[in-house]
């Protein structure tokens, strides 16, 4: 194990390491104080306590005082503790369909990663990019985006990162100095971000939002419906991103032909396509087809779990190898988020908050979508995108009810906007991975990232105005 000795003055070390404890005490006291108060007018006692739990989770999610999955668990145990509902009911939310859909999708993505199939796909997609520097940027973006259609964007970034490092080394691009090196890593991260909103597989935030929608009894969103609704925005953003990257960052290399040799070498190292990889590829394609055509009848989670069962039936991967790579914590976080959202809905707390504090400031359904998506895009830069979804979707659905809107519109607006974080390392893992390369400095990324965020929001609003109605999704209700 490697160690680092923190040699800062001890009071500073204590503050840095233990600041959480006084905050926890303060939070605990606030919780206790609020618990002893009478509920405000118009809000039931259960609703009031549910709101306390929600606000506590909100603080924990925003501040990261606890790891996100642990806050998710807290959201499960707090309602029974505060007498909002029985423990059996609270824990039953964990067994909801979206949680199992997320689990299935994660297992499939992990299998892709573990088998090396995703790396092979990435290498073949990158292979034709070495004709010119601009072409390589395009290929990196395209590879990242296309792979993020079928697996979690952060898994794609983690898988592509070493490949981009190899390319930058072959091209002798210096960290912190090479503009082209920086462009390649940004292209990888933003390719993942843009591709990640295209389908429900690009991250767990869309399934989470859909799960919240289902648990609130507001219907559902089909796989194909989501993909179709997002595709124009994804294409526009992809094109604009390429334009921005190639204009904003000077290309300081003449040729990238050496990258070709590096990619070829990596492809050779992959060896021939194994039977397991072929089967896995077939299985993923079949699962996607089923989600598109049979998702409504069979249920998204059923298809995902069935694919997982087949995965192990044919021994494509070993459970032991897979469980080491799986991000089980995300599933815990989502179980908790779905529980708290459902409790807000069932106790009427969400409705009360929106009626009292939000509705008076909003004048129309369009205003609702504009404000929610804008807030989401801004907050997702500083917060986990799943946390943003967990906060805004329940509130948004309550607002939508007040305006007689289709609650699914809120899910489209919030879930897509929550994935569009470009600037800060804490916003999304793919951006954080790009920063870890050492090629990026925040001041060099922040301006194009702000432009991308603005254009992304505009693209979503234009989609909502002109494209979604063609699919039967109307903002106006």
């Amino acid at each position, binding site marked *: *194990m*490697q*160690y*680092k*000795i*923190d*040699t800062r003055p*001890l009071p500073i*070390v*204590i503050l840095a*390491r233990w600041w959480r404890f006084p905050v926890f005490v303060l939070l605990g006291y606030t919780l206790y104080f609020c618990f002893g108060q009478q509920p405000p007018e118009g809000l039931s006692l259960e609703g009031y306590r549910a709101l306390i739990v929600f606000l506590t989770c909100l603080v924990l999610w925003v501040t990261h005082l606890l790891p996100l999955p642990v806050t998710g668990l807290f959201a499960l145990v707090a309602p029974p503790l505060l007498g909002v509902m029985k423990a059996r009911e609270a824990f039953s939310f964990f067994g909801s369909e979206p949680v199992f859909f997320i689990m299935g999708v994660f297992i499939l993505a992990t299998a892709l990663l573990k088998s090396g199939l995703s790396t092979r796909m990435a290498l073949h997609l990158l292979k034709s990019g070495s004709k010119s520097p601009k072409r390589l940027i395009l290929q990196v973006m395209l590879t990242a985006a296309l792979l993020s259609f079928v697996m979690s964007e952060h898994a794609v970034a983690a898988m592509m990162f070493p490949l981009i490092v190899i390319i930058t080394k072959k091209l002798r691009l210096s960290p912190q100095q090479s503009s082209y090196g920086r462009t390649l890593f940004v292209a990888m991260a933003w390719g993942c971000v843009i591709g990640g909103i295209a389908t429900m597989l690009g991250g767990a935030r869309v399934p989470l939002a859909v799960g919240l929608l289902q648990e609130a009894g507001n219907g559902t969103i089909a796989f194909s419906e989501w993909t179709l609704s997002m595709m124009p925005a994804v294409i526009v953003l992809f094109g604009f991103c390429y334009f921005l990257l190639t204009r904003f960052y000077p290309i300081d290399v003449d040729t990238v032909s050496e990258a070709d040799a590096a990619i070829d070498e990596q492809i050779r190292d992959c060896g021939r396509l194994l039977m397991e990889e072929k089967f896995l590829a077939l299985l993923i394609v079949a699962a996607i087809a089923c989600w598109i055509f049979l998702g409504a009848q069979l249920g998204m989670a059923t298809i995902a779990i069935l694919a997982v069962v087949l995965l192990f039936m044919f021994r494509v991967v070993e459970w032991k190898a897979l469980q080491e790579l799986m991000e089980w914590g995300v599933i815990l976080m989502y179980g908790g988020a779905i529980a708290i959202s459902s409790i807000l809905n069932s106790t009427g707390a969400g409705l009360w908050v929106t009626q009292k504090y939000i509705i008076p400031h909003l004048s129309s359904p369009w205003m609702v979508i504009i404000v929610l998506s804008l807030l989401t895009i801004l907050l997702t830069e500083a917060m986990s995108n799943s946390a943003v979804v967990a906060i805004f979707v329940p509130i948004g659905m309550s607002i939508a009810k007040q305006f007689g809107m289709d609650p699914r519109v809120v899910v489209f607006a919030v879930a897509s906007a929550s994935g569009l974080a470009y600037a800060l390392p804490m916003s999304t893992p793919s951006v954080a991975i790009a920063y870890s390369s050492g090629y990026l400095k925040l001041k060099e990324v922040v301006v194009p990232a702000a432009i991308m965020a603005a254009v992304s929001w505009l693209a979503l609003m234009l989609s909502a105005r002109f494209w979604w109605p063609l699919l039967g999704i109307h903002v106006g209700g």
Partner: protein
Amino acid sequence: MNIALLKLQLLYSGIRAGQNLPNPLTNPFGLVHLVLPEGVTVSVHRNENGTDSPFTLRKDGAQFFLDIAGSESVPVQWTPPLHSYQQKTSSGVLVSDILTVHGDFIAVHPTHACRFGQSGLSCRYCGSSRDVSQHPPFTPRDLVEAIQIVEQEKRCDLVSLSSGRVDTPDGGVERLEKWVTEIRKHLNVLIALDLVPPETNDWIDKTYAMGVDALYYDSDFFNPNDEPRKDFEKHKVRQLEALAYARRIFPTGAVLSHLVIGLEPLEETRASIDLLIDRGVVPVLAYFPPYDGSNLRSRWTATPEQAREIYAHLYERLVRTRINPHWVQQYDVVLTALEGRFFSNESPRYHLKLKNFYETSYGRAVRFSLARLRRHLRVVPA
């Protein structure tokens, strides 16, 4: 009677055995444990020649006295040798073959020749005075058992291990790691290591992170058989660098360096004290006069009267700084920095009260807890 001077004189001359003394009088290493007035402890060798020492220990009724030739008698306490020394670990190794107890700390016998021992002389510190190859081998498990046996009889705060002479880049850290790990796993004690300065500072980080509380990089590598070292200057520069870096990593006062008095001009020792204290390092002045009859005795230049100036200087420098001198508390084979107060008019300020507090069970708990807490805060997995 100046108690500190008496201690130095005892270390220099040893004692003669008088009347009515119990048997055995000495510990297995030939040392008699005495507590002088003011609670000053000393382990003094029995002068076998019986002629040069002006001190005679005798017993009158229940009281022990130290008769000083041409002067008055001083009442002292005699501490019987630990029974623990005669006990064995579960693998059959005698405790006295594993460690020596000096006041409130334990010096573990190196499984390899210590630097002083290499000269062929007795090492009063680590107990490996005889031929090291004759020492039975023992394991970290034996060491832990031996410490546990001693702790049942006597309180011990600090366990000190020495790397011996090594030429590896780590300065002996890796050699001692398994010992430190085993002690940390089973015992609640402070650990000090006596090492050679490593080539790079990351070894110093590792030393602290693996559970070491105090560190010695000795400034005097005395070996009368050595040719003058070719790379002495380079070595000295690196040693000062390592000490300065260790001072940033370890608690204040926990970076120490032995200086042997008497084998170099006293002015040089004085200059070395200043050099070390200026870098936040606590010099531990080892007053180990060669025994009568050894060929080094004639080269020895520091009589107790001469050495007192140096001890006074060390004490005064330390109390004027914020360096904590308490890592060497009850050290009975050297005169501690705080015992230098008997040679000076300068007040020990809060240091004496703190020393007395650390000797209580609460003080011990506080000291240990603070050391653990500091490590918990400072060591961060990279």
